[in-house]
């Protein structure tokens, strides 16, 4: 199966094709900040509405046309989305896309240049900084622990900063949530990177936040530590914690997030990973044969449901309206024609395919 989808029509004129190609046109992909009910009618619109448990009235985050500029430089622009309570929302984008600045803005560390937002039910604004901070937690990319203090002492300090009661109980519960009870007396400087990340996560959980912002939580971690952090996020998700997760790791977003947004200064797409794939890529079948067909145009043109085809070095990729209908008909036609079939499978585009396609589009647009 090809890792990336076939090239867009018009880009590969030497290849025989009668279809519009496997890609939908980028112009069909639009982002809307409106709830699902508004977006459903428009073909190609992708809902920015919250996922499970969320609604316009009860959203953990509502962001409308938010922008931040540093002088002439635009950090992010015209960003709109909603996140429901209990949702794990992935925020993806390349370096410099504005992910961290967005998180810092929503976390009241940076003032937006324009637009508005409601964070944990409170309008974003200078006067509401403390109120918002009392209902959220942020875990920056760097754990930011006091390395000469023990794990417990670090958490005690932050419990004091939130003026929390039952400090001992809260610390025990937070450490229990990240499986670190046995390292409570260790100096943070003696912990591995992965364990420090877990302590930072425990620190973020201390105040029972309504919304938890995790900025690149697995950055720089080895695979084992990464898996541990993934398991922790998954367990938080099961407990109903609303998580806003920025990440470079697309498999991480695909595995953990209910919905994802792709940011490249402006918001490029937003939706469930499956929706994004469907929006950007047409469904297709990957057909591998022992020998190439003599007349593929005649073969594929005769099978109902096949809308287009193209040849890749080791297989044929067929654009189909419904793989479940097209695959049996295709199999019968190939057998009847005497072709030796090695495999027929539906092409699966990953979130990475979606991401790379969008980023490539941006690169091409800037080049033009």
């Amino acid at each position: 199966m090809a890792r990336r989808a076939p090239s867009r029509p018009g880009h590969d004129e030497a290849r025989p094709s009668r279809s519009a190609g496997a890609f939908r046109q980028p112009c069909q992909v639009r982002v809307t900040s409106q709830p699902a009910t508004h977006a459903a009618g428009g073909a190609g619109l992708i809902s920015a509405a919250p996922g499970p448990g969320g609604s316009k009235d009860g959203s953990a985050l509502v962001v409308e046309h938010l922008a931040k500029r540093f002088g002439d430089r635009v950090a992010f622009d015209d960003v709109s989305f909603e996140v429901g309570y209990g949702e794990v929302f992935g925020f993806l984008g390349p370096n410099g896309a504005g992910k961290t600045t967005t998180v810092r803005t929503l976390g009241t560390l940076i003032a937006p240049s324009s637009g508005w937002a409601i964070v944990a039910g409170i309008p974003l604004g200078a006067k509401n900084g403390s109120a918002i901070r009392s209902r959220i937690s942020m875990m920056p990319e760097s754990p930011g622990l006091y390395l000469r203090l023990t794990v417990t002492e670090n958490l005690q300090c932050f419990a004091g900063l939130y003026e929390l009661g039952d400090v001992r109980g809260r610390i025990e519960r937070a450490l229990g949530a990240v499986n670190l009870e046995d390292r409570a007396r260790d100096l943070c400087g003696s912990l591995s990177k992965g364990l420090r990340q877990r302590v930072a996560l425990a620190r973020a959980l201390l105040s029972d936040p309504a919304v938890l912002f995790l900025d690149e939580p697995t950055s720089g971690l080895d695979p084992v530590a990464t898996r541990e952090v993934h398991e922790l996020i998954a367990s938080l998700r099961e407990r109903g914690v609303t998580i806003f997760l920025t990440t470079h790791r697309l498999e991480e977003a695909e595995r953990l997030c209910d919905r994802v947004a792709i940011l490249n200064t402006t918001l490029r797409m937003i939706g469930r990973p499956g929706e994004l794939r469907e929006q950007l890529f047409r469904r297709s079948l990957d057909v591998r044969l022992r020998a190439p067909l003599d007349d593929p145009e005649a073969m594929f043109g005769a099978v109902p449901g096949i809308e287009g085809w193209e040849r890749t070095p080791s297989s044929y990729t067929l654009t189909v309206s419904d793989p479940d209908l097209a695959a049996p008909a295709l199999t019968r036609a190939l057998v009847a024609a005497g072709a030796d079939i090695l495999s027929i499978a539906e092409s699966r585009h990953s979130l990475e395919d979606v991401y790379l396609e969008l980023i490539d589009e941006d690169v091409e647009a800037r080049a033009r």
Partner: protein
Amino acid sequence: MSFSWTRVGAILHKELRDYRRNRFVIGTMAAVPVLFITLPTIQLIAANATGKNLSVRIGLSLLYMLVIPVTMPSVVCAYSVVGEREQGTLEPVLTTLIRREEFLIAKALAAFVPTLVIAYAVFGIFLAVAALFAHPVIVSAIYAGPHVLVQLLFTPLLAGWAIWVGIAVSTRSTDVRVAQQLSVLGSIPPLIIVALMSLNVITESIALAIGLATALLAFDLLAWRVVAGMFDRERLVIGRPG
């Protein structure tokens, strides 16, 4: 949200724990007093009780004591904000409920308390050694006039100046080393006036000492507000004005 001493206490405890476990800070806090007590003590014990410049010698010896509250906190305070920023520990703190005034007061107290304890302890040791080993005329000269009052009065006030200059520099710096150099330089000016008094260039009197102390106190109180105004979350997080 009102000012909270709980949040001040959280940062203060953290700072004091951190100092205790930092060999560099402990080393500096131990070395500076040793350095500034040894020379004046020897000088005083070896001094000629009938010498013409006895008052100047005593003034010079006591001046060494006042270098302690200036140098000790300035290095620590220069690190207080920019150091945390470089270590990545500032951003998590800024995402909590702490107000800038609380953060700054906590940082200032964390430098002020050990400085005051050490500076007064060193002065006490100096007086004890002088009483035991110096000529009685010299001992009398130390206790006569405003010497002791100047020490007691100016030690906390000079520490306050050095602390606020250090924190102000640290708030606007992007490099710890630069912050420490500027902080030490910035803490010196009031010491010059005290030096001129100690060396009898300015005729010292109780009235002058109290007048200068009042001016320093006013500065220290004003500095807290000024530095709080300079403490901007956005600037501290992104390293430049937003």
